């Protein structure tokens, strides 16, 4: 603002003053930029602090983790992580991986053809179909828990990881359909038409035109479905017990813990969050499209 006004007046001033003014202007802009960077970084670090604290505490031993004031510079080790595997976290991680990976593959298997029929070769009233998928995402799962529990119990599928696979598939399918639709819609129509004129079959069109454009979108969709399945808690805690319990259920044991357990808790929290943190950082450029169900790019 002030810089602009200065510029206006500078035309009537001798060159030397103008040059000095411009230097002053650059200085104000630079210092505003520095202030901006400092402000942004302070806020970022305050906001990130709980995650940093979780990771740091997971490396401390139990007595250093429970001091007041906090011992930031206590010695670090990986002992707490080793202790987690002694406590048997592995089956929980395997169940989580099974439920998340298989459901993500199923989601893609169902969503990609559906998205094709909603973008490249759209069916009639394709927007209505899109909004039907979206509306199912808005139904609160807690309202479906009772019938799902009763049906699953009736067919003997309680405490079975494949029950979670089916539920997570339906939970993520609308997101995947919307995301894949928006990615496939980006395939240039002119090229598709040209391929058709040249007599390229469906398979060829898919492999050499659609796939290269849609591949990054497919990867991002997969990562987002993986994130939501891995983190899901409500169905997992109510429908599994011993055999099929997933990673979040392992954490439930810490809810009312007593005594010295904070460092182990932090290690467990870090360990189970790690796959999703990695997946999320890998997909971060496309994350917003998944979170807004494809509405925002």
């Amino acid at each position, binding site marked *: *603002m002030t810089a*602009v006004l200065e510029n206006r007046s500078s035309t009537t001033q001798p060159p030397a003053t103008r040059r000095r003014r411009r230097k002053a202007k650059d200085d104000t802009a630079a210092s505003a*930029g520095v202030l901006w*960077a400092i*402000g*942004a*970084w302070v*806020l*970022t*670090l305050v*906001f*990130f602090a*709980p995650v940093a*604290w*979780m990771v740091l505490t997971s490396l401390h031993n139990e007595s250093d983790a*429970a*001091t*007041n*004031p906090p011992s930031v510079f206590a010695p670090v080790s990986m002992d707490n992580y080793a202790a987690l595997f002694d406590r048997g976290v592995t089956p929980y991680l395997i169940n989580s991986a099974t439920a998340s990976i298989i459901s993500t593959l199923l989601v893609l298997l169902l*969503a990609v*053809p*559906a998205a094709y029929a909603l973008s490249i*070769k*759209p*069916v009639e009233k394709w927007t209505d179909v899109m909004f039907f998928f979206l509306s199912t995402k808005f139904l*609160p799962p*807690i*309202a*479906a828990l*009772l*019938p799902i*529990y009763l*049906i699953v119990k*009736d067919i003997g599928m309680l405490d079975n990881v494949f029950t979670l696979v089916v539920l997570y598939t*339906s939970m993520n399918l609308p997101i995947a359909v919307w995301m894949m639709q*928006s990615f496939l*819609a980006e395939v240039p129509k002119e090229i*598709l*038409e040209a391929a*058709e004129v040249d007599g390229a079959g469906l398979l060829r069109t898919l492999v050499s035109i659609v796939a290269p454009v849609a591949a990054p979108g497919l990867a991002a969709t997969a990562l987002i479905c993986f994130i939501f399945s891995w983190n899901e*808690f*409500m169905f997992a805690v*109510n429908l599994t017990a011993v055999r099929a319990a997933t990673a*979040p259920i392992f*954490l*439930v044991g810490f*809810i009312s813990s007593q005594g010295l357990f*904070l460092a182990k*808790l932090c290690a*467990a*929290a870090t360990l*189970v969050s790690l796959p*999703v*943190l990695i997946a999320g*950082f890998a997909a*971060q450029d496309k*994350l*917003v499209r998944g979170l807004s*169900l*494809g509405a925002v790019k």
Partner: protein
Amino acid sequence: MTALAPDTEPAVRQQEPRSAKEKWRLRGPLLPALIFTIIITQIPFLVTIAISTLNWNVLQPGDKSFLGLGYYESFAGLDNYVTVFTDARLRTAVVNTITLTVSVVVFSLLLGLALAILLDKKFPGRGLARTLLIAPFLVMPVASALIWKHALYNPDYGLFNGVLNWIWQLFGAEQGPTIDWVSSFPMPAVIAALVWQWTPFMMLILLAGLQSQPGDVLEAARIDRAGSFQTFRFITLPHLRQYIELSALLGSIYVVQTFDAIFTITQGGPGAATTNLPYEIYLTMFRKYEYGEAAAAGVVVVIGTIIVATFALRVISSLFKEEVSR
């Protein structure tokens, strides 16, 4: 899927009438996903509505079979809905759900907006800052609830009291205040943890909105010597409105469903001070075994969500149409 044969149709959205066979060929790839979604998402809700009209307590089973899934006592009509709106516990849960959802959405939206504005400008390490800011949304919700409960809020060794103690000692006091955050402020404690979790969600959508501003308009504003506040107020904010609406509505739909944080931090307590509807439904189902009441409360949540979702769909649909017509 059925279309490996050479295809002579023009590729995209054509208006001329198609034969029935052609229509079904186009629908083919869609059907598995559609049928799966209808079966898994719609049937349970129909069953929930049916159960909500029954007197069904598992501890006092009746002699009428419900689809072979269990035995209920009698048909209740709308009695369960009367209970939902008159029972003190359930009414508290409705109020708590609204308090929780509105507070979390408003605070995380404001914080998210502030962070998005900061990140919209170039500064050293901006990419890294954005990555760090996404982390709270990615940490497993149960894990982050546990971290807040034990590592931050704990009165003896939590980080909050630890930092207070450190500051107090810095100024020569012997001991900082010992605040039992969760017991003294149960609802704000849950809200703060959820605001932390949802701010990145808001930030990402709003940042995408800020960055989709047409550069030429901002340039024009600059040439016209509009101040940065004026530019924000009259150009950025109107452009951002859709994105603010979208993030608020989607945020509300997701935050209404909050279960993990309540289950972990307070178990709905003390008393029923932080029990929201999803947690109350869970208690009614698996602690009181009142299936009819739980189902009725579930239907109420669905209706509430549908009201918010209608507005959300309207915003998404306008963003979507913009995109399609582009």
